[in-house]
């Protein structure tokens, strides 16, 4: 059943199923994303969480911050845990062996939603093979990547999501290096090419866009991938109160474009139509420099010898925005 959320006031009637006094940093985006995802539905939710900030801070023995069914699993297999829950649920439903309380909800049209949360380390690098496998098998679940572009839990090592020029503990900036050398990989397209029916990129600062996409993802049958921008106060090194502002700058400068890819499939799983929609267009595209300037992890790029990296950034972002617009126009 789709929860009706017309505006923010209506959304604020939701009762949180994620509890306070967890040990996440002040101003962490992870919490905001988890809240918005869980509040997007009134149906029961089963959550699988890979190792990462979210897991170690919300389940410190002997405490739990989850009011939903929650599974903690290794760094590499959040997708498999969610896929297994989904497969088990479907078998139990077919055989009529669901617990009475769940059966009652299913009869009311409130099917349990299965969500996997993982950080970018558990998605882009370590969890990729299990994620790819689960998407290829086509289980019915949603995978939310909390993308803070660094291994924040273990002290800020680079991941394959870290963008070029960022200073991390394993790619430090200094007199020799300008920081991370590699470009960020485009996970949304990779997951869309698995043939997933719905793939989207979201930012917590655009809450309505996020909630709409999550609801759309819950409605379709099959694996759904959501890539969520998660500003990290500790590793992006901005002040805790600037979390929403930094996220907004990322969206407005098109560094983090908000778009979705819908693959329509027939009963054999053959994709007959792919469509890319840009769901948010900045009224005035701001220069990438402003986004970079808001985060001290890019501070060294403003030195004269590193200025060329900023130009490179702008070029890459413009090219990507152009690519997305062309794809939307062509309807592919």
């Amino acid at each position, binding site marked *: 059943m789709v929860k009706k959320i017309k505006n923010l006031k209506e959304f*604020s009637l939701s*009762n949180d199923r994620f509890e306070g006094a*967890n*040990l996440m940093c*002040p101003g962490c985006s992870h919490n905001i994303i988890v809240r918005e995802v869980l509040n997007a539905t009134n149906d029961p939710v089963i959550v699988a969480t890979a190792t990462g900030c979210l897991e170690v801070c919300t389940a410190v023995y*002997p*405490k739990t911050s989850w009011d939903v069914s929650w599974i903690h699993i290794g760094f590499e297999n959040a997708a498999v845990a969610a896929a297994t829950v989904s497969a088990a649920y479907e078998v139990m439903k077919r055989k009529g062996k669901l617990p009475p309380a769940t059966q009652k909800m299913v009869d009311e049209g409130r099917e349990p939603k299965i969500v996997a949360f993982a950080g970018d380390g558990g998605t882009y690098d370590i969890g990729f093979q299990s994620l790819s496998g689960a998407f290829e098998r086509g289980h019915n679940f949603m995978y939310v990547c909390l993308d803070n572009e660094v291994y924040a839990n273990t002290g800020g090592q680079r991941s394959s999501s870290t963008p070029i020029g960022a200073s991390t503990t394993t790619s430090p900036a200094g007199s020799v290096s300008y920081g991370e050398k590699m470009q960020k990989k485009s996970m949304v397209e990779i997951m869309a090419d698995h043939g997933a029916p719905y793939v989207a990129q979201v930012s917590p600062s655009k809450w309505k866009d996020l909630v709409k996409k999550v609801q759309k993802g819950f409605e379709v049958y099959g694996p759904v991938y959501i890539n969520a921008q998660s500003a990290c106060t500790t590793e992006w090194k901005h002040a805790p109160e600037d979390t*929403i502002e930094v996220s907004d700058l990322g969206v407005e400068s098109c560094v983090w474009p908000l778009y979705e890819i819908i693959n329509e499939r027939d009963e054999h799983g053959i994709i007959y139509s792919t469509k890319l929609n840009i769901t948010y267009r900045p009224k005035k595209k701001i220069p990438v420099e402003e986004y970079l300037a808001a985060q001290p992890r890019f501070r060294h790029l403003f030195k004269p010898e590193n200025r060329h990296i900023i130009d490179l950034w702008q070029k890459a972002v413009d090219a990507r925005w152009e690519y997305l617009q062309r794809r939307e126009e062509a309807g592919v």
Partner: protein
Amino acid sequence: MAKDMKHIDIEEIQKLGWDELIPGAALFSFREPVEDVVEVPMEERPYAPTNSHEWQVGDWRVEKPVYNRDLCIDCQFCWVFCPDMSILSRDKKMIGVIYEHCKGCGICVEVCPTNPKSLLMFPEHMDNDEALKRWPQKEEKKKD
């Protein structure tokens, strides 16, 4: 709640060493089964002592957000962007801040759209009534 699982008191757990576990112990969110969590507001939930809601992180703060009801327009921006579920909002109205859970990040103050802001950061030791007396006046819009 499965029958073979043992419900453990928080005092019992606190007596244990860091590397000790009670086999078969499960940490539940609630003292008794709650049929539909979404329908039950925070005040009425039967929280177990092992739910983090029963704990507090308020001592992380240096500055606290103080809420001014007179200026608030109930836009709920603070509610949706609060990372710690610390903004109490009922029936589309903002009621206050849960100081036990607020870590003092200041996002609610940043996103507040009123002029002057209806949420402001004040030193932790200051009384809320004292803070309300010191509330700044309306700022005139700068003409460029």
